[in-house]
């Protein structure tokens, strides 16, 4: 196996290993990790050998974006699935996370560039700082708007969040000084991209040597490993959280607020916590998104891409279930990208109906996604994975 | 043949059984009263008859038709009208509009029918344009009954007509029930105020724990000390 394939296999093995770890949950830890590594690498290598390079790249980018959306779906799951908060303004948190990470990790434009690009700050900080800042900023936004809105009943909260989503869009569209709106903010750094270029000064020589066979085109393989790792960490954290006393209270609040309040639980406090935690995760998702697409503007976070799609993902996967959220994200992302092929195949038929229709392909796809949402709501509102009946760990078991 | 016949009806809400083989009849000229302790299932019988509940077993027949579980708006067309215990008027509509809604299924002018209701309840005539939601309990009960009478029903069902009313108004309501009956409308009522309703009724049924316990002419039940002790709280 030549070096390129080997390097790619190692990278691709990361998400597969993490997946295997999750699915093999019940085995004893040693066995789990060894088996996970073996299976992960085997499948990755297998894919590398079997699939042509183009397909493999496509598969990798697919998994990558699916994982980014999975993070967003997990965030929504904390708010809606576990606490029953109806948030139709996901795009706001998504956008705030993305733009914060971008502003924190890019450098202020110099010289000629400064004429075209304006931004509020450019700290040039590393990726990890960007991710953390994104989470914090999103969480802060949730804290600010949660106060007046969280005590509202269901559909009023929904309207308030629609408003927030709209305001965020307007803000990023109109405030040039902030993030170059409406123009895109470009040049968002890609973490560890040095590995596919001239080598990373911060990493030991043998690592650089190992990955030297890769070209910049192979960057998605690196990024998918990073994204999968972050998704895994978020998932693990949430699974623990939901089994903790905190998670127990959240579920109690959702089931019967009055009973929880009568038991002395600070219901508004818990709802705020869930709202903020969910927002932090959405912010992280935004950051992951930004560092992949490298250039962002307000149109990336419109209600379709930034909110509705994620709701379809969670509804399909099963709200109240973290695995469902991840699966839903991947399935709906697959459907979304799959419809692209479908629409391409339908080109002649579309062109026959109207000459402009083929270039409006994305909207045909959105119609299909909307129909999917209606089908879910009408026929399978609980989604693919029903809510987990979670048994909280007793104090000493944790 | 009886106007209304409930035959061995068993029913409940969800999985909870409330009625167990309940039977009763109402002839076309009588006043029949259902009494019994709280939780006996009296209101449930009403809802069963009026199609708000489907019987698990048994049948409900009205004027020769099997109406078991039939939709309420169809039952109304057969001549059976129902006055629920609470929320029995449309608060944002005027008295007159409430009456008009009672006769929704009819197409023609309603002037005559409204006048008849106003004759029965002169107090309402004075307040015909007032919003029903702003009226006192007694007046609201009159509006509720008036609405149900707009269709000249063969049988009028009343769920606790005297609930929450001052004694003077209770008298008035029962007077009106008698008047309505005298005009040819059969009446089936459920009442907490057993004494007054049995005084008025031709026949009575005592219901307890979802079953028939005793039945007979109103005066008999009224004067039976056993009945009073066992079912009517002495």
């Amino acid at each position, binding site marked *: 196996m030549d070096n390129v394939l080997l390097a790619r296999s190692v990278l691709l093995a990361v998400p597969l290993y993490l997946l295997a770890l999750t699915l093999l949950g019940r085995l004893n830890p040693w066995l789990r990790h060894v088996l996970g590594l073996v299976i992960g690498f085997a499948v990755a290598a297998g894919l590398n050998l079997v699939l042509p390079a183009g397909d493999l790249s496509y598969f990798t980018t697919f998994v990558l974006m699916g994982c980014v959306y999975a993070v967003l779906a997990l965030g929504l799951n904390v708010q809606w699935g576990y606490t029953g908060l109806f948030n139709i303004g996901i795009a706001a948190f998504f956008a705030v996370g993305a733009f914060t990470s971008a502003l924190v990790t890019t450098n202020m434009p110099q010289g000629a560039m400064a004429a075209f690009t304006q931004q509020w700050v450019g700290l040039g900080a590393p990726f990890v700082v960007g991710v953390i800042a994104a989470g914090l900023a999103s969480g802060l936004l949730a804290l600010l708007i949660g106060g007046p809105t969280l005590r509202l009943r269901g559909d009023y909260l929904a309207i308030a969040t629609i408003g927030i989503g709209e305001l965020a869009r307007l803000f990023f569209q*109109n405030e040039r000084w902030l993030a170059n709106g409406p123009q895109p903010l470009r040049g968002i750094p890609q973490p560890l991209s040095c590995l596919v270029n001239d080598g990373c000064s911060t990493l030991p020589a043998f690592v650089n040597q190992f990955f030297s066979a890769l070209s910049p085109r192979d960057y998605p393989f690196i990024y998918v490993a990073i994204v999968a790792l972050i998704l895994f960490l978020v998932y693990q954290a949430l699974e623990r959280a939901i089994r903790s006393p905190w998670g127990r209270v959240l579920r109690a609040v959702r089931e019967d607020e009055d009973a929880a309040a009568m038991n002395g639980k600070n219901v508004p406090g818990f709802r705020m916590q869930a709202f903020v935690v969910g927002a932090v995760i959405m912010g992280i998702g935004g950051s992951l998104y930004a560092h992949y697409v490298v250039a962002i503007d307000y149109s990336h976070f419109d209600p379709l891409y930034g909110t509705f799609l994620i709701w379809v993902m969670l509804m399909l996967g099963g709200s109240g279930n973290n695995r469902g959220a991840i699966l839903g994200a991947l399935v709906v992302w697959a459907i979304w990208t799959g419809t692209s092929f479908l629409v391409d195949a339908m080109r002649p038929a579309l062109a026959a109906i109207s000459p402009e229709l083929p270039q409006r392909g994305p*909207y045909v796809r959105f119609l299909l996604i909307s129909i999917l949402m209606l089908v879910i709501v009408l026929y399978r509102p609980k989604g693919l994975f029903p809510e987990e009946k979670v048994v909280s760990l007793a104090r000493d078991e944790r | 043949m009886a106007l209304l016949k409930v035959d061995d009806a068993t029913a409940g809400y969800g999985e909870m059984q409330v009625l167990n083989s309940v039977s009763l009849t109402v002839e076309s000229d009588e006043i029949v009263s259902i009494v019994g302790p709280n939780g006996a299932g009296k209101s449930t019988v009403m809802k069963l008859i009026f199609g708000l509940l489907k019987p698990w077993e048994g049948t409900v027949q009205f004027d020769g038709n099997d109406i078991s579980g039939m939709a309420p708006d169809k039952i109304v067309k057969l001549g059976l009208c129902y006055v629920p215990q609470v929320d029995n008027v*449309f608060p944002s509509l005027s008295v007159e*509009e409430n009456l008009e809604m009672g006769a929704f299924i009819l197409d023609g002018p309603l002037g005559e029918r409204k006048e008849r209701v106003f004759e029965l309840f002169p107090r309402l005539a004075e307040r015909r344009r007032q919003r029903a939601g702003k009226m006192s309990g007694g007046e609201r009960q009159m509006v509720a009954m008036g609405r149900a009478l707009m269709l000249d029903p063969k049988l009028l069902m009343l769920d606790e007509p005297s609930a929450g009313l001052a004694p003077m108004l209770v008298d008035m309501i029962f007077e009106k029930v008698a008047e309505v009956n005298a005009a040819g409308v059969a009446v089936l009522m459920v009442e907490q105020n057993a004494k007054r309703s049995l005084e008025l009724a031709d026949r009575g049924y005592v219901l307890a724990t979802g079953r028939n316990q005793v039945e007979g002419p109103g005066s008999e039940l009224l004067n039976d000390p056993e009945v009073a002790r066992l079912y009517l709280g002495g």
Partner: protein
Amino acid sequence: MAVVEQSLAGARGRNLRRRAGKLFGNRWTLVVILALVAVAVVIGADAKNISGVRMLTLVVRGVMLGGILSLGAVGVTLIYGVLKMSNFAHGDYMTVGAYLGFALVGVLPHGPRIAGLSFGYEFIVALLLVMPLMGLIAYGLDRFTFRRLRVRRSPPIMMAMAALGLAFGVRSIVYMVFGADFAFFYTGATRPSIELFSGVRIRTDQLFILVLAIVLIVLVYLLLERTKIGKAMRATADNLDLARISGIDTERVVFWTWLIGGALAGAGGMLYGLDVQLRPEMGWWLLLPLFASVILGSIGNVYGALVGAFTIGIVWQVSGAFMNPAYGPGAAFLVMILVLLIRPEGLLGRRG
């Protein structure tokens, strides 16, 4: 002695808190606060040297915009009242109506411009066709989706999800058929304007829009107050079970609710498109001001929807004097939050 003093102090504190609580839910508190905002606006305008004429112009434009919003808001509030459902697809229903009108105007032969306005009879014809058409479409979509959920007694959240699905679905169809660019009913048409009084100018079209909106609202009022089906709609909104018990044909009530709601949405969309422009997102952007109007005026209350719509329209336009006009809906949002904090049941609602 000390104990008594302490308990008195406690009682006073509780009294104060209770009084403050009463102040909070009070409808007049809300009115006063809104009035204070208005006063602040006037003072602010003076401070920023914004001319009285400009402010008046904005207020007048706000009233016109309020007319358009009221057409949507009445629909939203009716649907909520009768069906107990927040129709998040209503904005996009306005979009569909606008584009149906656009298609019809494109197909009909254009007549000469009607006295002083920027369009000919074809716009009126399109309007008269679009209204019942949108009504029927709205009803059809309901039968297809919401009705199935109602029968199953689905929680309101599912209805809202379905509404969102419909909203995005119909919007994608608009995108597919008409593309993403904005469009105008009449390209390159001159827009005649007139002076109303002391330097305040508005376009004649806008006057037409306001008058038409008022006419439609009056018709709806007459329908609700004078016709049997209108009263049945109000009765069903009051108490669905009692409506059924009384023999009211609730299916017909639902039909008429969607017919009216859809028709008004279609008209509102067309008028908005005439005044501003047509874009596939236009309705979604109106959703926030629509719900702000409805909440301000008390959800379920048709007259409240009117009051709310005109207020929000004015807030929207006037805010443009102080900040980027694009943030108009943001001002509406702030008013809505204010209402939800002080008195969520709105100006005309009842507590509890």
